[in-house]
């Protein structure tokens, strides 16, 4: 986990949730910025051959593929997970646990 200076005062869960919500918004701004870069970079004419492995990647193919992978597999799931955790309540978590127990008796 990231290091945290010992002098930093602890957060309450509500404060942590508010901070998560802010981080989710910051990530959405990154998502938006990456989308702009993606849309402004022309696709190479032989993109399909490079993606299929018949030719090596060039820089444009690499950048386009990296943006798409990072958006789909990393940033969008991260934004969803942070937003969920920023809004969840103890009552919802207790209800989820009861439902989980019904489906999976320990």
């Amino acid at each position, binding site marked *: 986990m990231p290091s945290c200076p010992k002098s930093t005062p602890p957060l309450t869960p509500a404060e942590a949730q508010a901070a998560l919500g802010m981080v989710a918004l910051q990530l959405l701004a990154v998502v938006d910025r990456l989308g702009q870069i993606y849309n402004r970079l022309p696709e190479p004419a032989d993109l*399909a051959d490079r993606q299929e492995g018949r030719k090596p*990647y060039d820089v444009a193919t690499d950048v*386009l593929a990296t943006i798409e*992978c990072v958006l*789909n*597999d990393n940033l969008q799931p991260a934004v969803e997970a942070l937003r969920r955790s920023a809004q969840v309540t103890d009552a919802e978590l207790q209800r989820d646990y009861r439902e989980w127990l019904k489906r999976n008796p320990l």
Partner: protein
Amino acid sequence: MRAKTEADMEESRSLGLALLLLRRSRGLTINQLSAASGSSVSNISCYESGKQMPRLDKLARLLGAMELPIDAVYRAQRLVDQATGRGAPREDFAPSRQDALKLAQEAGKAVAHVVLAFMELQAGGWEDGRRGE
């Protein structure tokens, strides 16, 4: 947080190669696999080139679209690792065609296709005296 190590990248590369060989063994283009699995072409290309490790749910969908069980990719990866010397010395991977067919019967047809496809990618393939019968 743990930084991505060289070992992680090796793992991504060998899993990616296993995925690529499985797809080719099924006669699918990357576009066809994309349409069948719901993953984008760029994502599949990233996985196959080892630039990104697929999440388990995405891996399951890709293998489902190829009508393969999820462990097929790990079996294929083990073969790739042996063949490339990652899992064992390269000289240890010298199956004859007969051995590969026996392996196929034991491990399933898809894995045999992977072995055969991999050997075709190697210079000399089955005709190479070191690996051939």
